[in-house]
């Protein structure tokens, strides 16, 4: 096992590991910007069916990383458990949290990460979204004690789809990659249908 490395482990909080975090963040921010994710219209077009860039980019990224992780793990280079331990499942807060983040995304036009990119490129709506995320996070921490057991409800620990399906991680990654490729064709079809319907509506509105 070579990875994850001890030198750059995020728990270490050494000057080297913190510098590593800045470098990774810089690459992350640059790619998000170049994908167009610093612009609200590019992001929200996903939810109006006119341009499904978010779905394509995110699912491609997910498949790329999943294939990479499972290949490194199968080759004995990566200790998968060292990484997956950081992503436990808490079912109920993740359901409610997912709905809230999705709703907040289409209202603000960004997700918490892309709003940082938008703010860094001068977009005021991005900066206001960043402010909102800070306020919301603090607000939840304030009210969380009053919500009783909710925050830790549906605690299933480190639970993974390949365990539930009894598949090796690499096999599941290959299946998901195939599903992704097929779904991208479906996404193109949806875009065509939506944009045709919009064009028809627009021409009907201008014809006397």
């Amino acid at each position, binding site marked *: 096992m070579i990875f*994850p*490395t001890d030198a750059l*482990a*995020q728990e270490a909080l050494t000057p080297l590991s913190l510098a*590593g*975090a800045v470098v990774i*963040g*810089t*690459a*992350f*921010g*640059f790619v998000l910007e*170049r994908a*167009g994710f*610093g612009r609200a219209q*590019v992001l*929200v077009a996903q939810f*109006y069916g006119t341009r499904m860039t978010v779905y*394509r*980019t995110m699912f*491609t990224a997910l*498949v*790329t*990383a*999943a294939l*990479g*992780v499972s290949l490194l793990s199968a080759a004995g280079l990566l200790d*998968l458990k060292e990484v*997956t331990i950081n*992503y*436990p*499942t808490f079912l109920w807060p*993740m*359901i409610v949290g*997912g*709905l*809230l*983040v999705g*709703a*907040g*995304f*289409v209202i603000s036009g960004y*997700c*918490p*990460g892309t709003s*940082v*990119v938008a*703010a*860094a490129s*001068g977009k005021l*709506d*991005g900066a206001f979204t960043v*402010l*909102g*995320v*800070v306020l919301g*996070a603090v607000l*939840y921490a304030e009210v969380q004690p009053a919500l009783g057991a909710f925050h830790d409800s549906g605690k299933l620990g480190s639970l*993974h789809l*390949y365990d539930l399906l009894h598949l090796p991680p690499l096999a599941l990654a290959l299946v998901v990659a195939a599903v992704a490729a097929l779904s991208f064709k479906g996404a193109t079809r949806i875009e065509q249908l939506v944009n045709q319907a919009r064009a028809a509506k627009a021409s009907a509105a201008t014809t006397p």
Partner: protein
Amino acid sequence: MAKDPSKLWNPYVAGVALGLVLLAAYALTGKGLGASGASFRVGVAALQAASPAHVEAVPLMAAAIEDGPPLRYWLVFQVLGVILGGFLGALTSGRLGQETLRGPTFGVAPRLALAVGGGALMGVGAQMARGCASGQALSGGALFSAGAWVFFLCFFGGGYGLAYFVRRQWT
């Protein structure tokens, strides 16, 4: 050479690049990508400056200061990088410039109000779910965490469910 600000990377190329950044994060640091955790730390740091006793009395905030100053945290440094990378990307693509992105018939003030409001919903949701679109859906999803996939589905459900009601800010 003239820059075309509307020119974006092909989504599949951007996806592979994003996936490789995520893979590097896992392999080198043991953790993925994220953002909302850093936002929380910034809020906690601001509150701590105003009222240290209050921060110690709120369980989630107390957990954030357990190991020292709230800003001494890997995600805070990663997000500093995101600011730098986002700035460099915008600078080199011709998309750098002060503006408020919105539809042609929608005002600046209501757009900024929706940005704060939507951001606050995401701040609440991401604290509940232990992560946002990057920290949970993408970083947990690529590891096939069951909770991350549930979050991912609910994220799209919430977006599609509400899109109709806020469509006027984009048209």
